[in-house]
C-alpha cells in the first residue's frame, strides 16, 4: 500500500495571519531567534493497488483540483510504501 504525505504551504508573499500570531507568541515566550513562522497543512492519503508513478500523477491532479488552492498555496507530494493504514 502507498501512503502520500502532502505538504500544503502558503505561497511566498501571501500574508499568513496565523503564522504572524504564532510568531508573536513565540517572541513573548522569549524565543528571540525566531524570525518567521508560516503555517500550512499536512494531508495524508492512502492508496490501494497503485504504483508510484501513476499514484504521483493522480495525487498531483487531486491536489491541483481540491487539496490545495493554486492561487494562494504551493504543495509538495511525498510517497512512501506502508503495510497498514
Amino acid at each position, binding site marked *: 500500500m502507498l501512503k502520500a504525505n502532502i505538504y500544503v504551504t502558503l505561497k511566498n508573499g*501571501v*500574508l*499568513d*495571519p*496565523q503564522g504572524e*500570531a504564532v510568531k508573536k507568541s513565540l517572541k513573548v515566550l522569549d524565543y528571540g531567534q525566531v524570525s518567521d513562522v508560516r503555517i500550512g497543512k499536512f494531508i495524508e492519503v492512502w492508496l490501494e493497488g497503485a504504483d508510484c508513478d501513476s499514484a504521483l500523477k493522480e495525487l498531483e491532479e487531486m491536489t491541483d483540483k*481540491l*487539496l490545495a*488552492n493554486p*492561487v*494562494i498555496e504551493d504543495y509538495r507530494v511525498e510517497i512512501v510504501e506502508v503495510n497498514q493504514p
Partner: protein
Amino acid sequence: MKFGVVVFPGSNCDADCYHVIKEVMEQPVEYIWHKENSVAGYDALILPGGFSYGDYLRTGAIARFSPIMPSVTEFAEGGGLLIGICNGFQILLEAGLLPGAMLRNSSLKFICQPVYLKVNRNDTPFTNQLKADEVLKVPVAHGEGNYFCDDQTLQSLKDNGQIIFTYCSEKGQEGLEYNPNGSLANIAGICNSKGNVLGMMPHPERCAEGILGGQDGFYIFASMINWLGEVGK
C-alpha cells in the same frame, strides 16, 4: 423574474435570501438543493452565506464540486445573473468564476458587525439602483473575508472596473482603519469581466427591509430585478 437560492449542506443564509426575494422583492423564488443538476428556468441565482461543508479544507472548496455547480457555471458563462454572498463569494472564488482567494481575517477573529461600503460603479446589473460613490451600510459576518490575489490580477480588476464594493468610512473614505478583515485594496465585492457574476462578503439580505434597521441591501436586489427587466425587454 425567477430566482433560485442554491442550498449547500451548511448554508445558513438561504432562508434569509429566499425571504427577501419572495416577501420583500415580491418575485418568484425557489430553493435549489446542491444535489440537483439543472438550473433551467431561472433568471438569477443566489449562492447564499453559511458554512458549506463546515468550511472543511478551505471555505467553499468542497461546495464548488457539488453536483449543481457545473450547471451554475454554465449559467454564469452564458451570461446569467449570479450573486454569491459571503460563503457564496468564497465558493465562486474556489470555482474560478471569480479571480482570487480568501485568507483568514487579518485579526484572526470572526467579525460580525455593520460596515460601510462604497459603490464604485452604478452601471452594473447589481448596482444600477444606487448612486456611484454612494456609501451603504451592510453587515458582515465572516472569519475568512481577507481577499487576496496577485498583483497582475489586482491590476486587471482595477483596469476592468471589476471592484464593485470597497470598505470605507461612513463618509466614503477608504483606509486600513475602515477595512474590517485586511482585504487587499479594501475589496468587499468584485464582479467577473462580463459583469454578470458578483461576489460580496457583506450580507445585503440582512438589511433589505426597515424592520431590520437598514434597507441598503434592498437596492442590490432591486438592481438585479431592474436589470433583468431591461434585458428582457
